[in-house]
């Protein structure tokens, strides 16, 4: 297959170039960024036989994002069902496919999940900033034009390789997709000792609703308020998935584009897999928090990573 390009004919609300994220720069005030649903992202690259950490597209909502190929290209699509179509024909999810020269790939609207991942042969070409191609809108870092802007109409996408070795998704593969009574494992910690016993009971024994106020920085959950005895804490480093409780008692889960330091009390942090699942939840989805030990969470995490090795 010859090296070609893909043109963005129409931009949706938010499509970002993402990789695994920007690490080792938190002390500079630079956020982690990277694919929010890192599991679907990794599957997309795996399907094409790409190296891990290859840059792919994170497509949020769809919103008629339209991509036109200049020549035949083999791509892989995973994650949310955004009603993807090639020239109007529905596209099977979680698989490789060929987009032929002149064909248009369109993402219409979410049917299940929120973020789809589109992988390219060898990974997308994009400038590397601080060791990553991840695009962070808030920090004006990364992206095709090095200014943190999402894809825009007229943008040209090109990729690194030209001979992908497509694979099929294994039958036992599981990708994050919100179901009824979605479970989000949480490692207790940080200021958890400063929360009343009743609040801790409430945290794990009520359904939380994913709020409209949700983006790559943080996702707010609403339910019966949790109360800590602390008004605030002296700002400290915040890990991925941190569940912070502002004075109104409604948790905010801090995601990939979070501020590197913050000053609200926290009850702990969701596991990376829970963050991936939460990032696929549309507003008004019901979720349940479930305590898990750090050790157990790491066992599960290592098992997940081993799948792609």
């Amino acid at each position: 297959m010859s090296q070609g390009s893909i043109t963005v004919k129409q931009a949706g609300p938010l499509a970002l170039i993402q990789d695994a994220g920007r690490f080792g720069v938190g002390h500079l005030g630079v956020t982690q960024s990277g694919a929010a649903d890192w599991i679907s992202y990794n599957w997309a690259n795996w399907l094409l036989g790409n190296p891990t950490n290859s840059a792919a597209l994170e497509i949020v909502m769809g919103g008629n994002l339209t991509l036109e190929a200049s020549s035949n290209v083999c791509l892989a699509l995973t994650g949310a069902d955004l009603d993807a179509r090639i020239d109007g024909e529905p596209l099977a999810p979680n698989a490789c496919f060929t987009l032929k020269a002149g064909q248009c790939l369109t993402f219409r609207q979410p049917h299940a999940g929120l973020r789809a991942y589109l992988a390219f042969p060898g990974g997308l070409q994009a400038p590397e900033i601080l060791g990553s191609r991840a695009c962070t809108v808030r920090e004006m870092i990364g992206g095709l034009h090095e200014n943190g802007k999402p894809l825009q109409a007229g943008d040209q996408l090109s990729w690194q390789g030209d001979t992908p070795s497509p694979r099929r998704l294994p039958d036992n593969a599981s990708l994050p997709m919100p179901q009824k009574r979605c479970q989000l494992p949480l490692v207790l910690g940080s200021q958890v000792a400063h929360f009343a016993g009743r609040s801790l009971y409430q945290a794990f024994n009520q359904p939380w609703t994913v709020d409209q106020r949700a983006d790559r920085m943080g996702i707010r959950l609403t339910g019966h308020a949790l109360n800590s005895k602390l008004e605030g804490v002296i700002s400290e480093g915040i890990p991925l998935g941190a569940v912070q409780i502002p004075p109104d008692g409604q948790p905010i889960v801090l995601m990939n584009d979070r501020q590197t330091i913050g000053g609200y009390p926290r009850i702990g942090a969701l596991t990376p897999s829970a963050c991936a699942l939460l990032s696929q939840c549309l507003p008004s989805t019901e979720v349940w928090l479930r305590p898990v030990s750090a050790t157990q969470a790491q066992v599960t995490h290592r098992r997940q990573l081993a799948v792609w090795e």
Partner: protein
Amino acid sequence: MKLRLETAAMDALTVRLFDAIDESNMAWIMAADTALRHAFGDALIDLVPSYTTLLIHYDCRVIAFVEATALAREALKDLQPADTQNGQLHEIPVWYDESVGPELPQVAKRAGLSVEQLIERHCGHDYCVFALGFAPGYGFMGLVDEDLATPRLKTPRRRVAAGSVGIADRQTAIYPLLSPGGWNILGRTAVPLFEYARRGEPLFRPGDKVRFMSISKAEFEAAGGDATPLEERA
């Protein structure tokens, strides 16, 4: 200094050394930073120092929770404060003017000072950099003289120009890039903090000192400063 290790996440630990903000913390924080970087080596993903804590994000493929906790405890066992002379002093030229620093009159009035006296006081102190965060290259600095301390604006601005120098309570900072913000803005610098940060070489780091110098509009513009009044950007 009282060392505590807390679980922050599946693969992150918080090292808590202090319970209150103090400039003297930084010698300990920086010593812990060096010791932890050395101890964790390749297993370290990120290490984020702040006013009283350090967040260790380690690679749980390389070391497990129990080992990471033991490693951190061992690394910090005989901690001694770092030589504070190691921190660099950075002089930041600032054009203090109401057009780019709309809160100059209010902050001066609150403190019972003239605007000139306020500028002299803001420049007359070497501020300690406590932490970088909020935005790439954004340094939280202090402590501002108690009588200059001013609470954040009731309604934050939607857009604060890059280079804006502000005060919030007893802290002072420079906005590296155009962002929302609720600090009291006193002036503007032409020093391109964001450009340094995005290259991975921030101008200042935790433990460094910053001294502000008052310059004229002509000097500010000669240094490449953008003199567009702040409110026009709102």
